[in-house]
């Protein structure tokens, strides 16, 4: 043990000494070159081009001591290159696939007539949280798309004056709506975590998902089906964390984070957000025109028994047998079922 400690100590002394020596030799090289080969200042310019190397300056501010940063050009190429190109086409492709699916398949309709018996599917708290995150997501998505693609898509159409006003609005909306989105998603994750835990029957759903989508075959599901669960884990949890974490870094430049940190955060933010938007388009489609009755469920909180039977049979059975409380935060004594008036 003693040997190990002394070995570590010796190593660290060597390391620190080595670093000091390297620094010393850099400066010495610069000093010597001035005398030996005055026409070639290469050691000086190597020092100048060291990425994120802070030198001395009297001007206060972020990275004012850095003479040249090369990472900015790399960031520019990644942003204006792959992120804009592939990200843009990803969103366009998602829209095209959904449109093709809609025209080929049409919306998924109920097989049986609605019974008229309504079951509470989403409590008031769940609706509020869902719509808060949904609306804030749309605002963030649209403003973000404006900031990245507006220069190519909107500016040539609406001109500088209107576009300048629109992007200023987009930036401010993006900045001020973001905290609301983060908050609502955190609540949403806690609220729906239990109902999104994977169950054995979810794997069956994946096997039959094509038959369900194309031919309307019946696949029993819990409160959320396996597709919704994937959306929950991948989107609501995974992509939200990626987007929020990187977004907060960009949102608060007052913590003096360096340009390298903000460039990297931007690449994560834009990439994750574009994937998020592409997947969200699928969710929005399924929740509106893709599945008959789906929108009304979240809008009113109540669903028809036929809809519940055809889409979430296991949840319906559990609700009816009283094993699971229907909906979310239901006040005690509130009617879980009600007759359509």
């Amino acid at each position, binding site marked *: 043990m003693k040997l190990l400690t002394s070995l570590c100590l010796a190593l660290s002394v060597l390391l620190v000494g080595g670093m000091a020596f390297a620094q010393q030799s850099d400066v010495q090289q610069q000093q010597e070159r001035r005398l030996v080969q005055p026409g070639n200042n290469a050691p*000086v310019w190597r020092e100048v081009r060291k990425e994120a190397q802070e030198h001395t300056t009297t*001007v206060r501010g972020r990275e004012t001591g850095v003479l040249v940063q090369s990472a900015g050009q790399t960031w520019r190429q990644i942003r204006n290159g792959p992120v804009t190109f592939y990200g843009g086409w990803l969103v366009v492709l998602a829209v095209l696939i959904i449109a093709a699916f809609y025209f080929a398949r049409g919306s998924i309709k109920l097989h049986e007539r609605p019974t008229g018996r309504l079951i509470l599917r989403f409590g008031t708290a769940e609706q509020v949280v869902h719509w808060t995150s949904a609306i804030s997501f749309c605002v963030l998505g649209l403003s973000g798309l404006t900031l990245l693609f507006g220069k190519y898509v909107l500016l040539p159409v609406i001109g500088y004056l209107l576009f300048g006003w629109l992007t200023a609005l987009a930036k401010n909306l993006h900045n001020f709506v973001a905290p609301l989105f983060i908050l609502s998603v955190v609540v949403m994750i806690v609220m729906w975590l239990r109902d999104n835990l994977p169950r054995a029957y979810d794997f069956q759903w994946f096997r039959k998902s094509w038959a369900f989508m194309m031919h309307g075959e019946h696949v029993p599901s819990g409160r959320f089906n396996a597709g919704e669960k994937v959306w929950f884990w991948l989107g609501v949890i995974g992509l939200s964390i990626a987007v929020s974490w990187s977004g907060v870094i960009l949102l*608060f430049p007052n913590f003096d984070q360096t340009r390298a940190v903000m460039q990297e955060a931007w690449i994560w933010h834009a990439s994750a957000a574009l994937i998020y938007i592409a997947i969200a388009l699928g969710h929005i489609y399924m929740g509106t025109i893709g599945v008959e009755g789906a929108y009304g469920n979240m809008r009113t909180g109540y669903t028809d028994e036929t809809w519940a039977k055809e889409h979430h049979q296991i949840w319906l059975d559990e609700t009816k047998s009283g094993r699971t409380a229907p909906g979310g935060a239901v006040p005690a004594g509130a009617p879980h079922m009600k007759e359509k008036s």
Partner: protein
Amino acid sequence: MARMKFLVDAERCIECNGCVTACKQENEVPWGVNRRRVVTINDGIVGAEKSISVACMHCSDAPCMAVCPVDVFYRTDDGVVLHDKDLCIGCGYCFYACPFGAPQFPQAGAFGLRGKMDKCTFCAGGPEPDKSETEFRKYGRNRLAEGKLPACAEMCSTKALLGGDGDVIADIYRERVLRRGKGSEVWGWGTAYGPGKPGAQPPAGQPQPTGARS
């Protein structure tokens, strides 16, 4: 018309910060914003100390122009990169992309909210009418319109900082290098004006400086 450039002679700069002061005074730059700064490497080490004055270099293929989401940047016939503050949204992307750390943001609110970007204009003002009151208030003095060169370079006591027609200042510098036999590197020109010989042309698609000697 000429292709305007800055040239800093690291062999001559004595870190007096006269250029920084001249810029602030001439353009009445607000507090917290410095369009120009002097950076010293190996400060205090005899024989290894070098100082360089940095501001916007008015790049040929300007990264700020490429990443701006609102396209506020434009290039004058003199090759000077200017911007329209009325359109700027303060996103900070030009600051991420700029190799020289030129874009500055006055704080416009809590949490470091960025105001409209401010940077060196090569003393050439902005999109407003030349020498107008609004132009001065937003961008500072338009010395080029008055037939003068940038205040920083004009004020430089050792003439380390040269500003003007790229070909003319390159000639002055070449003569200096030949006389003293050292310090031939032109700092930042490769980054700002592209690889190859000093005075490289802007890439295709950008307005070409007219009348520039090759």
